[in-house]
């Protein structure tokens, strides 16, 4: 039911600058360490040995100098391939990150920030990056318009059904419980609750806004940002309030995913009473249930009508094609 918002990506640890120019001392140091010292960017020992074994059989047949030149050429080729692979990998990461911000990416940006002086190989680099994105992540690199050289990533994985979306993580259990407590408070207070009331209730449970909680993380962020952004809660300033106060109400997603009756039931259980103990809220919940039932019936009816229309269309089509 609950989804975490996208977390911000890695803070930049190197100064801004284009790939091939404008490197400051720090980035140079890092670049140097990448190309020379970092064991991860060099061949792993296994690969290296394997490579040497490849060269071995060829050597005895040639004069020593010829063998050395061949070996040098082979290793230069390998280095070029590795460099190409690295650039492809960088481009994949670049595209993933750019897409996260939902901004289209231009080919010139790719060249400027990633491809650099391997510009001539751009088409191959981009094609390989696209293949990785498709195969590994399930994204398609789609060009917007033939001339523009602007791209976006499209998710090729099948879209989630409504029930599937609910279970899409977020630390379900505890955070869901916290949300329901807040929804309950809001409902019992007449469909809106002052921010101070919400924090007061949570304080009594040992939850403080900015104190790290082992179940909820930072409650203030979870409630004020996550829940609001995900539309589980709505937050607004109470008009004409002085000093200005803010209030919470159910967000549109809460209205879709949970019912007043369910929340009332939860509150009732908490107080070891029956839902009918609160006649006003109970009546309201009953009315809400009736509304939902009507909406569901309408939706089902229109689905059936559409299915019938489709079947009729198909029948007339095949009738046209059939030989008799």
């Amino acid at each position, binding site marked *: 039911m609950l989804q975490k918002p996208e977390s911000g*990506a890695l803070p930049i*640890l190197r*100064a801004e600058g284009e790939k091939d120019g404008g490197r400051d001392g720090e980035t140079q140091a890092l670049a140097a360490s990448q190309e020379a010292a970092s064991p991860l960017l060099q061949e792993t020992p296994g690969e290296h040995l394997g490579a040497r074994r490849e060269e071995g059989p060829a050597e005895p047949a040639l004069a020593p100098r010829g063998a050395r030149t061949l070996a040098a050429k082979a290793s230069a080729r390998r280095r070029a391939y590795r460099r190409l692979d690295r650039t492809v*990998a960088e481009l994949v990461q*670049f595209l993933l990150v750019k897409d996260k911000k939902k901004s289209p990416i231009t080919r010139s940006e790719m060249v400027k920030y990633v491809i650099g002086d391997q510009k001539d190989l751009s088409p191959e680099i981009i094609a*390989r990056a696209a293949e990785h994105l498709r195969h590994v992540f399930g994204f398609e690199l789609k060009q917007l318009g033939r001339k523009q050289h602007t791209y976006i990533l499209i998710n090729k*994985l*099948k879209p989630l059904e409504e029930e599937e979306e609910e279970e899409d*993580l977020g630390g379900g259990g505890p955070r869901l419980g916290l949300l329901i407590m807040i929804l309950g408070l809001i409902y019992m207070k007449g469909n809106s609750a002052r921010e101070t009331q919400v924090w007061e209730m949570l304080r009594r449970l040992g939850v403080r806004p900015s104190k790290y909680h082992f179940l909820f993380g930072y409650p203030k962020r979870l409630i004020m940002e996550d829940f609001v952004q995900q539309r589980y809660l709505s937050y607004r300033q109470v008009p004409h309030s002085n000093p200005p106060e803010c209030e919470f109400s159910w967000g549109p997603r809460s209205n879709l995913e949970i019912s007043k009756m369910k929340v009332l039931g939860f509150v009732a259980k908490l107080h070891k009473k029956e839902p009918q103990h609160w006649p006003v809220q109970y009546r309201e919940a009953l009315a809400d249930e009736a509304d939902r039932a009507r909406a569901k019936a309408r939706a089902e009816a229109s689905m059936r009508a559409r299915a019938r229309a489709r079947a009729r269309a198909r029948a007339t089509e095949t009738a046209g094609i059939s030989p008799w």
Partner: protein
Amino acid sequence: MISNHITAPSHMQGGTRRAGVMTDVHRRFLQLLMTHGVLEEWDVRRLQKHCYRVHDRTAAVEELEDFINNINSVLESLYIEIKKGATEDDGRPVYALVNLATTSVSKMASDFAENELDLFRKALELIIDSETGFASSTNILNLVDQLKGKKMRKKEAEQVLQKFVQNKWLIEKEGEFTLHSRAILEMEQYIRETYPDAVKICNICHSLLIQGQSCETCGIRMHLPCVAKYFQSNSEPRCPHCNDYWPHEIPEVFDPEKEREASTSKANRKSLRSRQH
């Protein structure tokens, strides 16, 4: 639902290693893990089950470790991997998708402005240099004048620090900041390369150490969860290096089962206490 059983074309595979099989189950898993940045193990298991439910209901859920190793073998040629770590304070296992090579692309990978990144860098340096692994808000904010890029006021810097906390790069405890496990997972290599003299290493697991306990005699350091495991059921804990008596309280080993039980009773106990005042 027909799964996509396609192995990577041979020109995609790094070296001679055979890459694993990628299906939509794995792809969905990767997409969601990327969205969340870092996840605790129990969240990861739920995520894995969710992906199976969505894309391949009939298949048996693969053992998490194998599942992740399979994906990592495919990620290898992209210089990224799903890395497992642990929170430094109580040893909860966490997972994140990390870059194996800190490349210049990282600088694009950010939602932060130049001065904000520099603030992070300053905080990082203070944290690494500190004895406790924590840098005070005051000390960090005193460095705002030295930041690269647009001038930042202290008030603004306070909010940027909160942004780092919200995005799980820093953790705040009582006005002091330390690295989130996400930052440690993602940046360990960068930190070890950039601050080779100041960096602290755990004597037991040999990984980067930000918070931990240290021997007062010989100075070696250990992560709290490493201490817990090493001295488990040892009534006379002694330094593994100099054999001197280990003077600190030995924490408990993280037990996921106990943790879930404790969560309910802890909440009750806390509310009782607050009512008594």
